[in-house]
């Protein structure tokens, strides 16, 4: 699950945290597009390298490393499955070019999870919802999104309490064969579901008591305004995109890094 670590907001006050979420999203989108655009190893390594200072500025290196560690297994699968399919579908031989291509796809994967991490680790859900609101997403969806995030820790606590209560009554989750183990989750899932229904009723009552849906023109305590640094980042991102597109489509393609030749 540590792959998901990179999706959890980590509080901070770095320039990246302060960036307008819309601009930040655009910046991440540029990195994302560029990573998809190229199929050569050099530009992908280059993008990976320019992400590192971003991680450093945001001071999220610890969470990012955890994410990479969590993604390592996935990366190995991508690398190995490519080699295996090259070997079996390419006439039972493997070249250095095949290895380079598999490596390229793996680095692309790392670039993608890094850009996701940078965005989600530095963007508070509140800001994200504000951005969604600005994008004219109906408030009901927005509210559902925030509520889901809000109740993750609450439900996790509740699941733990239920497990504790049932284990205290002699329930042994790790004993028995596969089928009987699944059956053992019934005493845990049922209270969890019933409590969630009860909770949702209480939530609805509390929402009503706070005049939910009272006004057509719902306001927001916070507003998003583009500052000068937001505009600068926006400009850099767009120029970067233009430069990469130029390199990809108007310059000769990158040659292979590894020499030609057969391994197997």
């Amino acid at each position, binding site marked *: 699950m540590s792959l998901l670590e990179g999706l959890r907001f980590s*509080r901070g006050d770095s320039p990246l945290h302060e960036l307008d979420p819309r601009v930040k999203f655009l910046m991440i989108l540029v990195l994302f597009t560029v990573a998809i655009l190229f199929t050569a190893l050099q530009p992908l390594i280059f993008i990976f390298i320019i992400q590192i200072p971003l991680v450093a500025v945001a001071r999220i290196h610890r969470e990012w490393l955890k994410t990479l560690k969590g993604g390592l297994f996935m990366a190995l699968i991508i690398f190995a499955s490519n080699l295996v399919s090259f070997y079996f579908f390419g006439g039972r031989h493997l070249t250095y070019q095949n290895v380079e291509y598999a490596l390229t796809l793996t680095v692309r994967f790392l670039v993608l999870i890094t850009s996701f991490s940078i965005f989600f680790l530095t963007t*508070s*859900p*509140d800001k994200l919802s504000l951005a969604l609101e600005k994008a004219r997403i109906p408030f009901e969806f927005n*509210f559902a999104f*925030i*509520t889901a*995030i*809000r109740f993750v*820790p*609450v439900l996790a606590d*509740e699941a733990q*309490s*239920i497990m*504790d*209560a*049932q*284990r*205290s*009554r*002699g*329930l*042994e989750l790790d004993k028995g064969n596969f089928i009987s183990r699944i059956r053992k989750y*019934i*005493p845990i899932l*049922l*209270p969890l579901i*019933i*409590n969630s229904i*009860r*909770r949702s009723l*209480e*939530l*609805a*009552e*509390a*929402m*009503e*008591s*706070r*005049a*939910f*849906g*009272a*006004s*057509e*023109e*719902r*306001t*927001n*305590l*916070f*507003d998003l305004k583009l500052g000068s640094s937001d505009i600068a980042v926006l400009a850099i991102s767009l120029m970067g995109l233009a430069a990469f597109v130029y390199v990809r489509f108007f310059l000769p393609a990158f040659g292979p890094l590894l020499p030609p030749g057969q391994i197997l």
Partner: protein
Amino acid sequence: MGFIEVRGLSYSYPNAKKPALAGVDLSIDRGEFILLTGPSGCGKTTFCRTLNGLIPHFYSGSLDGEITVAGMDIREHSTSDLAQHVGLIFQNPDNQIFALTVEKDVAFGLENLGHDRDKMIEEIDWAMEQTGIGHLRQRATHELSGGQKQRLAIASILAMRPEVVVLDEPTSFLDPLGAERIFKVMDALNKDYGMTVILVEHRVDLAAQYVDRVIVFDEGRVVNDGPPSEIFMLDDTRLAGIGIPKIVELYKRLNSRGVDLGGPPISPGEFVSKMEGKLPSGPIELPPRPSNRELDEFVGVYRSNPVIEARDVHFSYPSGVQALKGVTLNIHKGEFVAIMGENGAGKTTLVKHFNGLLRPNSGNVLVNGADISKQSVASLARSVGLVFQNADDQLFSENVREEIGFALRNFGFESDAIVKRVDWALNLLDIDRYRDSSPFILSGGERKRVALASVLAWDPDIVVLDEPTIGQDYSQKERLSHFLMQLRTQGKTTIIVTHDVEFVAETKPRIVLMADGRVIADGSSKEIMTDSDALSKASVSPPEITKAFGALSGRGLPGDVLDVDEAFDVLSRLLEVGG
């Protein structure tokens, strides 16, 4: 005409056999501070729901009679209109916080109403100041303590500037100081801004000191209504279900013996000032007490035989929170122990070590002399029965019989033994008539008893109850206290984790006080309840009677009096001598 006018109000929930409200007549003026009380299921919560129109707009069912709030008929106005006049605050703070940061949550109602930003900031500042959470403005809501969350819930309602605030058992999950803080916040709002406050509470001892009117509900009706000094003096059997403040009870008993204090006191302070006039002027010498050894004095006999030993136990959760920082504690066979302390002190974490749900990071826990590290939860649970706070976290079966048999099947009892033990447990907790009912249709108190029965069924030697009195009314607590007495006479070791000082004053266990992951005091109820330093460190305030006697101890009276019986005993001996 009052701000809230209620005439012949009756209501039944959809599919309910009995009406929840059966003809309520009430008139409530602006600026009143009201305690609304009554036994569980008396209709208090239902009544609150009518005040902002949750009934009939959110809950269908049949509503008869009249109810107007600020001149508005609740049937003709939506809940969001009414919510601007009547703010409802519920028991569980977690289920009324919507935003991820404190400030944003306070803004939620104002955003819904479409206020502009400057107005919002002004109202938020005011609401946070009133509730004392200004310093938490930027914090994430899930990081707050229970008391802070509840004050946030109040601030979020206050920001909408309602004329009436209704709090439905707001302090159930809070430690005593947290609860007192809530009452003080509401008191200040009532005094400074003339806000009308309606407080629904089971803890009458503390609440009665703040209010100027008490309304008692029973079976969907108002059965008593008046100032606290009158209501609690009534010899009405209909008061039996709610209990009366201990100070008033003491006054009543003294009064019946001809001691005239001139009108009932409600707070310990009032009692002290009334009592001082009655005390002899010179130094007081109390005649020796007739020998009358209480049960807790016999407990010393068992002291040689520890059944639970914790040795320098340290424990941290994976999140990094250090919950236990070196706890050493022995609990002996047959003892009755209460673990007290503020929320987050590590009480529940500690008891989860007793049946192996948690294992120490360092240090040892021994149960019946054997280290828990080599034993599974299931094998430890055979001798340590843990009953959790919220019964709903464990009920899942089709009927009560199955629910109680669940653990017995897990432990591999024979089927006829299971039948016998289930019957035994059903009788023990007096729930035999529900044997074939679904546990989900039972009331909160009954569900709690099913959960208790489902653990006692396998007859563990050590019984641990986490917050057994939460959400329980006066008579349910009485029943629980008798039941605990019964367990003790069977020689069981009983451990409760609790915030309820009045319950502790009545049952007098050995008290282990915890604060910040450590045991800070350990001793008899009398020792601990008079140790004001340790109590304040643990966010526990002494029982009301003890507060009064603490103040009188300067005059030579004993300061370690915990309950009404003892207080009456001391004072009647003294006044006979003095008179």
